[in-house]
């Protein structure tokens, strides 16, 4: 069966520090991969999606970047965190024949 792993679960980082969040999917090939952010009291905002290795599309211009170095690995990064980057980050995958998202368990990022 397919599983999605996201880590770390919780992260507290100072302003100006770098960020790297990792997401991996098991049990499937060539998934579509997504990064969402959920800010307090708000809905889910799509940040990046990828339909293949090295292919990244950005939905919202921001302080963050994404990379997909391997088929089932999706990384969210920042060179210098801002206070406004705080939030709950969710990775998700879908198959090519889209039947819905499967989400990871999320990373709670607090920038202090």
């Amino acid at each position, binding site marked *: 069966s397919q599983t999605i792993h996201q880590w770390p679960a919780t992260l507290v980082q100072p302003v100006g520090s770098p960020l790297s969040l990792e997401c991996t999917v098991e049990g499937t090939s060539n998934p579509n991969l997504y990064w969402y952010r959920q800010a307090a009291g708000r*809905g889910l905002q*799509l940040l990046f999606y990828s339909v293949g290795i090295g292919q990244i*599309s950005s939905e919202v211009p921001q302080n963050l970047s994404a990379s997909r170095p391997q088929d089932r690995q999706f990384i969210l990064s920042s060179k210098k965190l801002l206070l406004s980057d705080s939030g709950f980050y969710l990775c998700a995958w879908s198959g090519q024949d889209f039947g819905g*998202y499967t*989400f990871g368990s999320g990373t709670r990022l607090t920038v202090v």
Partner: protein
Amino acid sequence: AQSVTQPDIHITVSEGASLELRCNYSYGATPYLFWYVQSPGQGLQLLLKYFSGDTLVQGIKGFEAEFKRSQSSFNLRKPSVHWSDAAEYFCAVVAFSGGYQKVTFGTGTKLQVIP
């Protein structure tokens, strides 16, 4: 562009009572619709989905939803709520463009269950 509205930010129901969470969507074609549930500090879990066919969709945990095209609605229902149903619920609509599917989520409804 598609959009989703969940008009209720918070809902409180008594355990054992029935539940209906509202969702209205805007989309030019036949929509693909989803309901997700999120427990505090957790990711989102798919409850049910509608792609086509029978407009009454059964999901996990005893939930169901009915697609009503005339009302552009996809309301979630449960006949008897359990305390473990306390969570946040998200409705979502999918648009397909250039081989890629874009999912738009509503802002969520937080459900509180009281004894």
